[in-house]
């Protein structure tokens, strides 16, 4: 997360990167990129000189302008039912996974934040309660962060592979494959958003005698909610892409139809599905803009 504006200035000149430090950091980043490229033997020219088949490229990108709704298999099969099935499955898997991930992300994110135990208002609790809060709080946060790290260190495709080999090709497997890493990612970002939410209103409620739950639920959580909503919507977009790609494992999402058409070299069909996916993403983007405008989130 970016530091809040002003916080860098508050640190004074020493907190900022000096001119020479910045130059060294930028040089370092470029050097790292160069070393990686050399190590991989990347050469932008060979991308073009070593092309195996210009024909495939021509055919594939040439088909971009002629997506079709009639199957290219010659059977005059109408493609719309397949498109709709793919859209429906993609949406259903993404929605199911995100519903789980948002709930788990909120719970884990809250536990991983420090807002519920590092309060600095004097009194309102006994010395024992305070000591308990100051020792148990950080421990729970530490465990939650470790758990979140485990969830999100494994990509959804790897989760899918592991879950498939364990439980087979069931709907629950696909939903979990997306929901598990997304819970971790959401929880990490949510916890940062909760920790960075301005605390003034919460402290004001505390000063008026409010209890812990009120301070968190009314004073702090609403301040993080616009960011949380916007980020959850963005992750929903990502979940749509993930659900589509899970089709490669055999689920009836858009990815399934894309890979089937691709294997048969029906590139115009592939483009039909790709444009459908694009349309889905654009609709979600529209929805998120509308929601933000209605709630003055922007």
């Amino acid at each position, binding site marked *: 997360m970016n530091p809040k504006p002003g916080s860098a200035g508050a640190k004074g000149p020493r907190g900022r990167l000096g001119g020479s430090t910045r130059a060294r950091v930028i040089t370092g980043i470029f050097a790292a990129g160069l070393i990686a490229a050399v190590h991989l033997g990347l050469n932008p020219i060979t991308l073009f000189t070593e092309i195996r088949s210009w024909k495939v490229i021509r055919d594939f990108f040439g088909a971009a302008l002629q997506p079709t709704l009639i199957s290219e298999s010659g059977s005059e099969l109408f493609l719309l039912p397949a498109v709709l099935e793919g859209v429906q499955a993609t949406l259903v898997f993404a929605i199911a996974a995100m519903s789980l991930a948002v709930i788990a992300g909120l719970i884990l994110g809250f536990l991983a934040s420090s807002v519920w135990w590092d309060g600095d208002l004097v*009194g*309102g609790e006994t010395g024992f*309660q305070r000591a308990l809060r100051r020792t148990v709080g950080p421990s729970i946060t530490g465990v939650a962060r470790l758990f979140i790290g485990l969830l999100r260190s494994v990509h959804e495709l790897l989760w899918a592979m592991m879950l498939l080999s364990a439980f087979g090709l069931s709907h629950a497997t696909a939903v979990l494959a997306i929901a598990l890493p997304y819970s971790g990612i959401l929880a990490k970002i949510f916890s940062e958003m909760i920790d960075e939410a301005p605390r003034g209103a919460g402290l*004001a409620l505390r000063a*008026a*005698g409010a209890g812990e*739950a*009120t301070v968190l*639920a*009314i004073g702090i959580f609403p301040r993080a909610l616009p960011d949380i909503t916007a980020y959850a919507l963005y992750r929903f977009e990502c979940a749509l892409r993930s659900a589509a790609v899970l089709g490669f494992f055999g689920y009836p999402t858009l990815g399934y139809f894309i890979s089937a058409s691709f294997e048969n070299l029906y590139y115009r069909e592939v483009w039909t599905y790709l444009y459908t996916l694009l349309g889905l993403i654009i609709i979600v983007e529209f929805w998120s803009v509308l929601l933000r405008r209605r709630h003055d989130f922007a």
Partner: protein
Amino acid sequence: MSGASLEFDGVTVRYGETIGVADVDLRIDPGAQVALVGPSGSGKTTLLRLAGAIREPTKGRVRVDGTDLSQLSPKELRRFRSTVATIYQDLRLVPELRVYQNVAAVRAGRRSFLGLLRDLFLPSGGSVAQIHEILESVGIEEKLYHRTNQLSGGQQQRVAIARSLYQEPAVLLADEPVSSVDPARARDVVRLLCDAAREREITLVMSLHNLELARDHFSRLVGLRNGRVMFDDDPSNLSSEAFTRLYSLTEEEMIEQGAHR
């Protein structure tokens, strides 16, 4: 509820090496109105935080209506805090909530958590009518259901004032309430607060940067400097030299402030 008395008895607050207030003795009668004046860092905010039991004194006693705040159990402390309303320089509202929700939330100290959620999201006609009435008294009743972040700065300040009155406090603390308000409105806001407190017999303690406002609206000014009380009197008894002395910097302080900047 009528006002409470405030008593500072040899109160010192240290923040590490820095002195917040040093050996302050002060008595404020129930329903009295007092302005705290003095340069930045003179201890005004610290005194307000002590009175609201947000900070404990390093030394000395703070008594409200005769009760020593350091003797309160956690539960009593929360109950006490629910009788002290504070208006902050930065308002400290929840901009994402609606105006009536911001006002209603301040009674958290006297409500169960679920009871408060009901007040906020399924409010009864009675509590809405009460909030409407208080918003009317500060002149923004038509904003009752508006989202707070859609209001102008001046209107939001009135929400903060309405919130403090809805708390039905015995003591009203205002920490530089007009420092971010334009001068014409500042006078209105200070008058509004003084009138509202007088009408309800609430004890009012307000810290102010603007000496003119303090002199015009308060019959008792407490001048603070470096955490010490320099004067405590009716403004008509105070010479202009007293004010000059309050704000003038010693050479030492000038060097120190330069170093901080």
